[in-house]
């Protein structure tokens, strides 16, 4: 680990910004998972994304930060908000439902993943992560990214575009109106349908 205290004003500023952003990130992350109201969860996500954008700036990834705000916060979360509004209010106790072992097991699994990542990073890669070199001025700029996309990573670029196309088509099809007189639902689903209708009334 690098020495926490370094005698430089710029460094201190960066540290402060980093810690604030990190706390915001953590807090909003927990908030997203915890709120029972989906609307609040989506709004927390905006905060999360914003703090992450700050992090990216600190890591000299300007274009990625910009894309994060534009795409994620600007488009994805907006989509979420629309759908949440369309679906309407839902009451849900976040930690309830399902067998008890599932809840505990989920906590254990997530915790295990976290610990493992930390251990992996700390123990194994500790040495090589100790010192970071300076980067050139064009690192992380849009032009630099663009050149990389069209030269070294052209295949990734093209495949990503195809994925986006497929998703767009799929989204349209899924969202289109079903014809009248579709097949009957299986009995279990029909049951949930009736419950859903009563639930809306609540």
């Amino acid at each position, binding site marked *: 680990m690098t020495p926490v205290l370094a005698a430089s004003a710029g460094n201190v500023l960066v540290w402060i910004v980093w810690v604030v952003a990190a706390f915001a990130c953590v807090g909003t992350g927990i908030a997203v998972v915890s709120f029972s109201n989906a609307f609040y969860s989506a709004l927390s996500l905006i905060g999360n994304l914003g703090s992450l954008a700050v992090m990216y700036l600190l890591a000299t990834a300007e274009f990625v930060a910009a894309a994060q705000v534009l795409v994620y916060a600007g488009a994805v979360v907006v989509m979420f908000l629309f759908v949440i509004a369309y679906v309407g209010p839902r009451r849900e106790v976040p930690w309830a439902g399902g067998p008890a072992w599932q809840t505990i097991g989920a906590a254990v699994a997530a915790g295990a*993943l976290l610990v493992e990542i930390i251990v992996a990073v700390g123990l194994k890669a500790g040495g090589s992560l100790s010192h970071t070199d300076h980067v050139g001025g064009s690192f992380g700029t849009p032009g630099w990214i663009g050149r990389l996309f069209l030269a070294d990573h052209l295949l990734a670029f093209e495949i990503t575009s195809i994925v986006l196309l497929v998703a767009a088509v799929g989204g349209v099809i899924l969202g289109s109106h079903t014809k009248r007189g579709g097949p009957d639902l299986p009995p279990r689903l029909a049951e949930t349908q009736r419950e859903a209708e009563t639930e809306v009334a609540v």
Partner: protein
Amino acid sequence: MTGGAWLCLASPLAGAVLITLLGTSVPRRVAAWLSTASVAVAFAGALWAFFSLRSQSGHHGEITTAWTWLQAGNFSAGMQLLVDPLSTMMMLIVSGVGMLIVLYSIGYMDGDDEERRYFAYMSLFVFSMLMLVEGGNLLLLLVGWGLVGLSSYLLIGFWHERPSAVAAAKKAFIMNAFGDATMALAFFILIAHSHSLAFGTSFTTVTHLSPTAANLVALGLLGGAAAKSAQIPLHTWLPDAMEGPTPVSALIHAATMVTAGVYLIARTHPIFEHARTIELIAAGAGALTLLVAGLIALVQTDIKRVIAYSTMSQIGYMFMGAGVGAYASGMFHLMTHAFFKALLFMAAGVLIHALGGEQDIRQMRGIGRLMPLTKWCFLVGALALVGIPPFSGFFSKDSIIASTLNIGWYGKVFWASGVVGALLTGIYTFRLWFIVFPGEPSPFVREHLHKHHGKEGPWTMLVPVGILAVLATVGGWIQWAPRWHYVTTWLEPAARTLAAAEPTNTQEYVTSAVTVAAGLIGIAIAWAVYSEETLRVPAVPALRNLLEHKFYADELYDALFYRPASGLANWLTRDLEEQVILPTGPDLGQTALDAGGAASRVQTGLLRTYVFFLATGAAIVGLVFLLVK
């Protein structure tokens, strides 16, 4: 001469195939004449082969190979035909008598629904029998052997709607299969030693075998011969085989197939001479059979059964002759027997045909007055059978009996049984004649006799009967052992009579006299009992039962073989198959279903469960990764 042999063999096969392929597209008559023509062409081929062999000096004959039929390791067998004196004699008998009988069948089987199938089978049989006698190595002989058994099965069971016919066909086939098996075992021993089944090689191989092995080979061959020729102990199938149509009985179970055993002994006589004990056992079996069959024939009431037991008895004579080493005498009797036995069967067939299928002799009383031609032909056959000169049987049978005199004390026993057999033959044959033919026609006869347009039968039936009657009269004149012996001389290159089996002229004359006397006494007894009714049949119920049940041979085999086998089969079905094997299938299926059901409980359908497993799995993999690296 080999061309003649090939023609003789191929013609009936071509006939059978052609009839089969033409099927119902030709009228039944055409199929019948096609079959007859194919056998006639075979006879022409046989004549060709015979005459060209005659013109060859030394008459040694030759083997002609068409192609190598079988090659396995260092064993190879060719598609070979043998043309030598013995085989040409048999070819002439088989194709000649066969031609007459197939012609007779045209009249006998007229109107039957499945006539074409019958004639195809008849052609197939003639082909099989010719393959048997013409085969140039033991393997082809076995092929013919098996095919003959098959044709016999097909023809005995020809009227397959009758359960008794089907049962009789099965019985014949199974007993013959037993004989086939013993022959195959004998061949295996030969192959193991010499890697060849050619005649010459096999005969020399036997001389190198240990006595046990040689005896086993001969015993195997004897098993096959006894099964095919219905000698004791494999004799019970022949009377039942009378379920087949009468021409079938005439051809297969009198003239040709059942004599195949005698031919086998004559053909493979070097093997038997090397296992002299077995050869004498063959003679003993023949002697025993001729007595037993003669006794059983005394109480039979079915006309065909009487003639069948008579066949069994006469083949016993042939076995006796071949067994002591008098191969030529045995073959000569085979030839004359073919003539008069076929004659007897066919004459009986004329009666049966005229009476609409009745075969019980007690119903046929007095038919002679209404069917004189048949009566006289039957008389000719009967006299030939008993061995009265100048008919053919006299010349051949007495030589056999005389040939047994010089081979030891058992030879004397054989001689005595031969003479007693002649007495029995006289009795049962003329019992049959006196019951059926003379006297007033019975009411049954008056009612059921249907003549064919005023004649006793169609010309296709009467002409062969007439021809055979002539042959039964003159057929024996080509050999009279003391004076002239063309048959023995002709067969010498192939089957030389053993020295011990050569009777002196004195023995011949004495034997002839005794045998003819015995035959005449038999005729007289029959005349007294059945015609004049001055003597009565002694009433000994136990003896009568014994004879009527054929010495309980069928019951014995039933207890020895059939009951244990069917008991085993039933036990296996009941306790093994139904308890153990059958439930296994559904059980296996049920187990698979249960396992699948248990396994499918993992698929809860809940998203959270799946993701949970996913996350857990990733955690575990990460842990392993950390520990390992």
